């Protein structure tokens, strides 16, 4: 309990920042489309942590609501994303985003 109570807002923000960074890192570096989408999930969850932490420390329920909706939407987005990725796989026989660059310049 001691421990818990000593945890301040900054810890949460740091965590979320780290998550955000990891997410971006994944999006930028991983070749696999699925992994990239996971990176996006990380980014969204970083935002979620922020919302929850702020709503905890500022009071008010908006943050909680927001995070709930973000989670739902993330799910919906994942569904569509998977559909698209599958279609990509059907056509290109690969989900390596770096190899999918027929349109450029």
């Amino acid at each position, binding site marked *: 309990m001691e421990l818990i109570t000593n945890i301040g807002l900054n810890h949460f923000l740091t965590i*979320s920042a780290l998550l*955000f960074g990891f*997410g*971006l890192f994944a*999006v930028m570096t991983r070749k696999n*489309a699925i992994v*990239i*989408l996971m990176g*996006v999930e990380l*980014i*969204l969850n*970083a*935002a979620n942590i*922020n*919302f929850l*932490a*702020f*709503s905890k420390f*500022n*009071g*008010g*329920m*908006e*943050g909680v*609501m*927001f995070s709930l*909706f*973000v989670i739902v*939407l993330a799910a*919906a*987005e994942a569904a*569509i*994303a998977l*559909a*698209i*990725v599958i*279609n*990509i796989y*059907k*056509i*290109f026989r690969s989900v390596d*985003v770096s190899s*999918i*660059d*027929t*349109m*450029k*310049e």
Partner: protein
Amino acid sequence: MFELPSGAEIQSIIATLKTGVGFFIPEIYLSVLFMLLIVIDLVVKGRKNNLLSAVTALGLAGGFYFIYQQHLLEAGEIFFGMYVLDEFALFFKYFFVLSGILAVLVSVADDQLNRQARSIGEYYALIVAMVIGMIMMASSADLLMMFLSMELVGLTAYVLTGYLKNDPRSAEGALKYLVYGAVSSGLMVYGFSLIYGLTAETNIMKISAELALHGYDPLVMMLASLLILAGFGYKIGAVPFHFWSPDVYEGAPTPVTAYLSVGSKAAGFAILMRFFYVAIPHGGEPFQDIAGMDWLSLLIVISIASMIYGNVVALWQKNVKRLLAYSSIAHAGYALLGIIAMDELGTQATLFYLLGYLLMNIGAFYVVILISNRTGSENLEDYRGLGRKMPLAGAALTVFLISLVGLPPTIGFIGKLMIFSALLAKGSVFIWLALIGVLTSVISLYYYMLIPLNMYLRESQQPDEGKDATGMVHRIGIAVLMILTIYFGLFFKPLLDFAKISSSMLGMTIY
């Protein structure tokens, strides 16, 4: 932790919702239309493209009636400030319904799309869904609502882009759109969270009140507005948030391209104006301490970059769709100039510019579709000698392009005129912006004129394959669009008045 609300509270909540519904009729109506389309798609067998398209077009047209009804209601916020109804929102409701109708029109024209007779129903349903999403984008007054509506638009857009399942370009476009869009919206949400952290509010009017009351840490605010701008900027396709647009515009089915280029772009402008004007309106006076002008300087940079980048890179395009994609980046830059002016005239100019852009850009894509129906290609070389084979289409396209360049007597010229007037009305501070604007439009002349140059000044290698098979509907369609483009270039008062009335937002304090 939280105790449940009492019955009385629930009653009041329900009451508020019930009153709110009265302000929400067009959206409801369109949602019904959306479902109706899906139902029709399920129950009707056989070829139903024409039926569906007719239903969609008429249904959307019907939407005008309900929107018109809302003029009787006075501006206000509903659903606990989630959603607002004001002149600004109404303008965009008309705008998006109109763009939806035009999108249906061009979709009907596109053979390539209709060859996929199977499951075309979803297509129109998605178009309607996108209309709803964009309307909500224009009307939402809460960060949450903004996020939801943008996701709605985004998701439908991804699907529409990838609608031609077997076309690799379509699929690739969809993937890129998806990844880029997801990242951008992720950034935006993170920015939202920071704003929420600063103010403990999600309603934009409350946010501005909070900020005005307690001030803020400029660094965090800057970061927040940067991230949020990333979300909006990707919708309006402005540099440096534009990277998705050329590939998506090229890959997507042409009607979808046309729709995205006018619809979701306009929606992005609507939400951008509302957010920045209402939520964080300070820093209105430019060129003072940089800390005081957080997002305006950002917008200036973005619009300059867009005007230059879009026009300069468009010079190199050989594919007309891609060329128009880059030009749309440039036009985002021009429209932003009006926002930068940060006054009523500027807003008016931007709204008018978007209207003009709707007309001329849809028109241009319309002709591009008709031509690709005939030649099966969107490459510049294949446009040779078309001016003689398709006289009406050629003339219309020329008019639209002239309008895109911004030459009189077209609506595009008036748009640019208003934008630059807005800038020069601020005195000499923004003249250099206006200079960049006119110079880049000279550049734009060059690549736009490449198309008539190929259509009229050059002869096609392959022999003339039969006569022009364009249907009468579409002849009339482009003719009407062409005439409107010129008519509003000469008698633009009604549109400008409309834009002026519509430039008032609920809870906006800058003018």
